[in-house]
């Protein structure tokens, strides 16, 4: 391998961080208030809901699939908890029911993908409508204003850091340990790289798929709860299109849409913070609201561009056959 190519790979690996740094500096230059510690913490708080659903999305992307139903599931789980709360059920029960909803819905996605062998895109596109439909029925398409108690959850602080950030940190730590330090985690990467090969190697691919979609469901539900706790209400459009923001966050952070590549930490975390920083920066600098969709388009384009650039570089790497000096070096113990 030649040195420039090595450098290019390193640059591509560092691209999410460089992009984040550039965004922070750019908005900071326009509005000094943007870089104030309070606002930076605010960005983290705002990013926590997106970050949590993006972690689940990353797990699914790693298997080579996608979970388009995540946004609808945020809505359904939040709807379930709201429905229970408004009928006087205790808060812990409402929260547990919301999380259970997420897991069950995720399991359904996973079973359809792994056992019935339907395409993830199609399965989760269908359940995108299904979960929202069930949610709309449950809420009678009315916005629900939730009791004070749930708002207090989001406002709670531990060591000066708001609860949503702690929850995000917990989800990230859990997913990171599972992905990098457990056999199951490494098998996710194998299954995502080549499902048939993984099956031949004795990897329980079906179980991995089910687990990944269930985890994504759980993350979507948790993300929904965090967002609801921040907003205090569930509107009929709640969570709508969040799956795309989650995909963009994961891919910006280095996850491949073709499976087998990506990290939740630092990758997806950086992606989520990056997207939220842009949104926050546009608000803080008082940018024209009509600019927002254009910026979103640019972000998604950047994400896909990075993904394909990484893939091209890897392919070139695979093609390399002549042994240059660089390889001799790695050959020595």
């Amino acid at each position: 391998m030649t040195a420039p190519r090595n450098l290019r790979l390193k640059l591509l690996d560092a691209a999410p961080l460089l992009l984040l740094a550039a965004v922070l500096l750019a908005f900071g230059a326009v509005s000094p208030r943007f870089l104030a510690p309070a606002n930076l913490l605010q960005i983290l708080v705002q990013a926590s809901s997106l970050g949590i659903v993006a972690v689940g999305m990353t797990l699914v992307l790693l298997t080579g699939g996608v979970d388009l139903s995540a946004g609808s599931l945020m809505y359904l789980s939040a709807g379930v908890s709201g429905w229970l709360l408004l009928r006087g059920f205790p808060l812990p029960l409402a929260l547990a029911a919301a999380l259970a909803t997420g897991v069950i819905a995720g399991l359904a996605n996973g079973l359809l993908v792994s056992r019935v062998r339907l395409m993830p895109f199609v399965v989760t596109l269908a359940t995108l409508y299904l979960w929202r439909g069930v949610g709309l029925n449950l809420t009678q398409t009315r916005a629900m204003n939730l009791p004070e108690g749930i708002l207090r959850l989001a406002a709670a602080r531990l060591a000066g850091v708001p609860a949503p950030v702690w929850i995000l940190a917990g989800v990230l730590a859990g997913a990171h340990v599972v992905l990098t330090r457990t056999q199951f985690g490494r098998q996710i990467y194998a299954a995502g790289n080549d499902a048939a090969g993984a099956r031949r190697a004795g990897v329980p691919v079906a179980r991995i798929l089910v687990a990944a979609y269930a985890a994504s469901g759980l993350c979507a539900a948790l993300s929904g709860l965090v967002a609801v706790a921040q907003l205090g209400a569930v509107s009929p459009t709640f969570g709508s299109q969040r799956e795309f923001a989650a995909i963009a966050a994961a891919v910006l952070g280095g996850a491949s849409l073709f499976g087998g590549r990506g990290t939740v930490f630092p990758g997806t975390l950086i992606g989520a913070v990056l997207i939220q920083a842009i949104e926050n920066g546009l608000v803080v600098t008082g940018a024209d609201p009509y600019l927002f969709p254009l910026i979103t388009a640019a972000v998604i384009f950047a994400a896909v561009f990075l993904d394909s650039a990484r893939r091209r570089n890897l392919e070139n790497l695979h093609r390399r056959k002549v042994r240059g000096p660089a390889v001799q070096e790695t050959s020595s113990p």
Partner: protein
Amino acid sequence: MTPLRLDRISKSFSEVPVLREVSLTVAPGEVLGIAGENGAGKSTLMNILGGVIAPDSGGMVLEGRAYAPRDPSEAGARGVSFVHQELNLFPNLTISENLFLTGFPRRRVLGLPLIDRRSAAQAARRLLDAVELPLSPDAPVERLSQGERQLVEVAKALHRDARVVIFDEPTTSLTANESARLFGIIERLQARGAAVLYISHALADVRRLAGRILILRDGEVAATGPAAEFTEERMISSMVGRPIGQLYPERRPLPSDAAPLLEARGLTHPGVLEDVGFTLYSGEVLGIAGLMGSGRSECARILFGLDPCERGEILLSGAPIQHLSPRERIRRGLAFLTENRRDDGLLMPAGVLANLALVEPRSSELEPVAARVGVRCANLDRQPVRQLSGGNQQKVALGKWLVSTPRVFLLDEPTRGIDVGARAEIYRIIAALAETGVGILMISSEIEELTGLCDRILVMRRGEIRGSIARPDFDREQILRVAL
């Protein structure tokens, strides 16, 4: 005790018998060499042994107990491990992760079964030492050469305390050096008392390694006995069921007034080629020998315009073509048979005719070309080439270029993974092309076939041409010495 006995194993696929009452035994510390043409049933037999498919009838006994694995992991648990011809590695994972993918050493931390990275690294280190690969266990597999990956695959098979190790064409992507290492590993396995089944088209390797040889033909055992009783000729005639005549066709010496067709001058690309120059004459078969990674394939790719080349000239009948696209070079009469027919050469799900039409869709020519290269299949139009044997696939890959009547044909490993009968046919096609004045540049890892077919052989090493030998003076050892 006999570790492995197969008793009258039969298997049919959609009522076509693939194996008929095949029986064999392998003793501890014995290497059983298995040879046979493609389609003789070797892979099916090995897949039954490895638990990938179940036999229709017959039984297996492993170390005194009945052996009927339901899946590869059960076979592994009984101590049967498999080195597949096709690598089953995950390039996005490290060497050590590939070795332990379904059996990491673990330790519990807070009740979680985490990977014990240190033990994994140590165990991986030992396995890599056993296959003499001086690489870090944490190196990502995507950084390894094809040969290094093959050795990692071997290390994977050594991982479990294997009682029976099956090697299926393990040397196809190994350099001579790496092959020698593999043979050392097999000898150590033997010494440890493991039973080894070694399948290969490289008959010389089979004879060298095996204590006993078994030849499969049309799903039956055609011959079996101590290796000493087998000459290569006897192996070949047992494989094809008839004496094969001459493997290499008679070649007439090149006329002294043959016109230069393709000239390379000072081709240089940093890290790939260094001042490569030669002339290929009309009607000549020019061989390129050299180890894998010596720049042979890269040279062909540059000549064909697939890879960039910083300096140098390529002349086709005197006209420079180095700035032209591959498409335009094809139009001017260049053809290129890639070393990887599965990925680069053919549309595997499509039929023979569709594949033959890939280069030039001249529909009237397709069936005559199919007949000319001797493709054997059930239906030229409908049978996907995926279902054809390697030899027939290669004939299709060759044939698609013949539709366009090339003047210069670049062949990269034209007989890789092909049985001896199909080989002879491909050699005849090559010789016949040369006879009509086509210039042929043939890259091969098998010095045997270069000396059998070529008028001249160039030897490459580290991107340079280090020697050129003409026909009467061919000397295997000399070629190898220059190549190493």
